[in-house]
């Protein structure tokens, strides 16, 4: 029983990673990963929405009539996305402005609707919560990996939170002067995504033996 719970929690990290294995939510993945801070902001937003939408979908699964379940999920998800949007605008305006259109687009992020439809409406609240945490963290880690590679090689910087005298930007000596520009563009994101997908494919095949 305990191992089942751990499995629900951990499979989103690698075995069923939403980005690299399930290939869900690729549009925001490619769109926001130009800076590490954007990946963190987007990841936090998705975890928040995923956790609450999974909990509420699981809670209401016996009340929501089957024929209108998708509209109901969308209303629930849209409500939480709007909450995240308003909170970020008020308390983290710089992340809000750099995430731009991708923040409201979490509503139609297929990871969230996918987990509501494929998992939360059939399972208990605790399992749905664990699933949301696992998938959300898996998504965030994937974003972080892509953003780190794209920002370090594409711009020669690592952008984090500004604290006190530290302005939040770490500059990497040689790469800052001679960055590989293509990585900051959409084409570079697709190229990198292809290589990473290839790597994870090779990795999971090798593991299965």
């Amino acid at each position, binding site marked *: 029983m305990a191992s089942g719970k751990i499995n629900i929690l951990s499979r989103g990290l690698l075995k069923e990673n939403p980005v690299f294995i399930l290939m869900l939510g690729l549009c925001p993945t490619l769109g926001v990963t130009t800076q590490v801070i954007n990946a963190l902001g987007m990841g936090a937003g998705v975890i928040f929405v995923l956790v609450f939408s999974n909990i509420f979908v699981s809670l209401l699964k016996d009340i929501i009539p089957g024929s*209108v379940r998708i509209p109901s999920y969308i209303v629930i998800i849209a409500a939480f996305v709007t909450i995240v949007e308003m909170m970020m605008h*008020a308390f983290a305006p710089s992340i809000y402005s750099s995430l*731009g259109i991708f923040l409201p687009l979490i509503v139609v992020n297929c990871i969230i609707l996918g987990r509501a439809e494929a998992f939360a409406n059939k399972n208990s609240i605790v399992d749905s919560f664990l699933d949301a945490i696992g998938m959300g963290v898996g998504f965030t880690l994937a974003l972080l990996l892509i953003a780190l590679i794209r920002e370090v090689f594409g711009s020669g910087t690592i952008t984090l939170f500004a604290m006190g005298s530290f302005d939040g930007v770490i500059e990497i000596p040689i790469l800052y002067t001679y960055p590989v520009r293509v990585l900051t563009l959409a084409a570079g994101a697709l190229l990198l995504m292809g290589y990473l997908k290839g790597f994870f494919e090779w990795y999971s095949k090798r593991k299965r033996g």
Partner: protein
Amino acid sequence: MKNFAKIGITLALIASIAAAALAFINSVTAPRIAAYDAMVVEMTLKEVAHDYAIGDKRTIDDDGTVTAVHPLTDSEGATAGYILSLTGNGYGGPFTMMASYLADGTVVDARLLTNSETPGLGKKAENPSYMEKFQGTGNDNPVPQKKDELSKEDADAVGGSTITFTGVSKTLAYGSAYVKELGGK
């Protein structure tokens, strides 16, 4: 029929609870958001005004590019120039900017505000130093509108984001002409 009503009521109930929750969150965050937006405008005004005093805002409704005018006065109280709130089109869509001009149309300073330019390329126009190449132009010296009108270093700085550059310079040139027409009023 009964089933139909049940489905409708359930959906309406979910939607109204969601709406109520959002209304509550909005009442908490709206004042903070408004205060932040006002602060950004205030800070930008101060930055582009340099040493001039900022007068009362006039909203412009009948111009596609200029949305507001703030007169600038020098230490003796005479009108020295204007700060214009401008909208233009960049690579990623519309942007807003704020630019200060002397009464003869010379660009004093400018800042790019909301925009959807490409990070690492067009987004560089957000840096105050990006606008240095426009300073002092607009009167005898026209606002540079093409890359070959720039010095080599400046042309390199806008390389890879030509559309952003033309968008910004066109908007600035339009503002300069607009200020000339105001004629110190």
